[in-house]
């Protein structure tokens, strides 16, 4: 990483001839350094994650989870949620496949919470901008959230809020073709390009705004509105985060700059988690298999849990 720092320094201070120590110089240096670091990590980690994921298709997760009950099942589902590829267009067949395999509803929800929450783009952004410790805390918290969220939904006995036709569907058996290494690497590379193509602009805008905050926004401003003195900051942060889905790439750099200016870490984590954990497009798609009331309960439980996590980390971090 020090080589990237050197590159950014020479680019801004030598090549562009901007004085070190000026606000403009600081902001530009911050921008180029973060942008290079994040793109490097995005390529390496997304490719790596995509290769690992090629070994865990959802059909395999279904088999692994098939004979588990509560607790152990919730934990395994939360962990599998990390490595199973998730796309909102697969949410319906995945949900039906799990229910059809006889999985308790709570275990299915542990998977549905963990899968989008612990996602590779958020992980890269956290690792690159906050360091591996925060990225690890985020992952562990995401798994914990999925575990307890699923258990609570299981205890509420909400099976009647699943659309009736779901219980009638019978799943067939198929011989899934095991891909060769060449294919795995090929798909992983395509996936990396696809994700980069979708997020690069948000990453640049986010880092740009972050750099601007870094150079120009005074610390007192952040402390006044979102600092430890404001008891409602976590709740407001989560409520703002819920509709921001799919922009984890763009929001995390801004959050990082705000943390530098005094935003408490718990508030920041709660905000980032609410962006990915509860996504409007996913909820709209899930409406095909579960009733609106269950979507509301699910969203409510996750939102409240994230708010608790936020306050908890504000106290201990």
């Amino acid at each position, binding site marked *: 990483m020090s080589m990237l720092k050197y590159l950014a320094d020479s680019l801004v201070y030598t090549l562009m001839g901007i004085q070190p120590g000026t606000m403009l110089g600081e902001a530009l240096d911050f921008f180029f350094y973060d942008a290079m670091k994040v793109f490097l990590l995005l390529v390496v980690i997304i490719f790596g994650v995509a290769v690992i994921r090629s070994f865990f*298709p*959802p*059909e395999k997760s*279904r088999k692994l989870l098939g004979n588990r009950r509560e607790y152990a099942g919730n934990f395994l589902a939360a962990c599998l949620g990390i490595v199973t*590829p998730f*796309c*909102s*267009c*697969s949410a*319906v*067949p*995945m949900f*039906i*496949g799990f229910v*059809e395999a006889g999985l308790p509803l709570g275990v299915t929800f542990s998977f549905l919470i963990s899968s989008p929450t612990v996602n590779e783009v958020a992980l890269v952004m956290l690792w690159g901008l906050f360091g591996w410790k925060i990225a690890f805390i985020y992952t562990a918290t995401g798994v914990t959230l999925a575990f307890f969220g699923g258990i609570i939904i299981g205890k509420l006995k909400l099976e009647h809020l699943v659309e009736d036709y779901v219980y009638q*569907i*019978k*799943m*067939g*058996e*198929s*011989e*899934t*073709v095991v891909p060769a290494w060449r294919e795995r690497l090929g*798909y992983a590379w*395509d*996936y990396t390009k696809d994700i980069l193509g979708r997020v690069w602009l948000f990453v640049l805008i986010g880092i740009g705004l972050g750099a601007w905050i870094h150079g120009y926004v005074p610390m007192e401003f952040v402390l006044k509105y979102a600092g430890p003195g404001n008891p409602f900051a976590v709740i407001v942060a989560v409520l703002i985060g819920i509709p921001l889905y799919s922009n984890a790439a763009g929001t995390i750099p801004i959050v990082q700059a705000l943390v530098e200016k005094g935003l408490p870490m718990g508030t920041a984590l709660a905000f980032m988690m609410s962006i990915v954990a509860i996504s409007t497009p996913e909820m709209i798609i899930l409406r*095909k298999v579960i009733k609106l009331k269950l979507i509301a309960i699910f969203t409510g439980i996750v939102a409240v849990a994230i708010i608790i996590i936020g306050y908890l980390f504000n106290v201990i971090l």
Partner: protein
Amino acid sequence: MKIEVLGIGCSNCNKLYQHALEAVKLSGKEVEVIKVEDIQKIMGYGVMSTPALVIDGVVKAAGKVPKVEQIKEWIK
């Protein structure tokens, strides 16, 4: 020969459908390409991730969009 593209109408499903049509055109063979959007039928193939590609009843790919050349290989 028959190619089925399984998916409930997401953008990747359409992309895969286009790839399949393209591959058939390039191969010059008589192959029927159809979209399967009925969830019961999709699940009937044992598939949990869409889009999926089924050739003559065999699931060739699930949860990804194979390239045109790859599909061409499969229908050769």
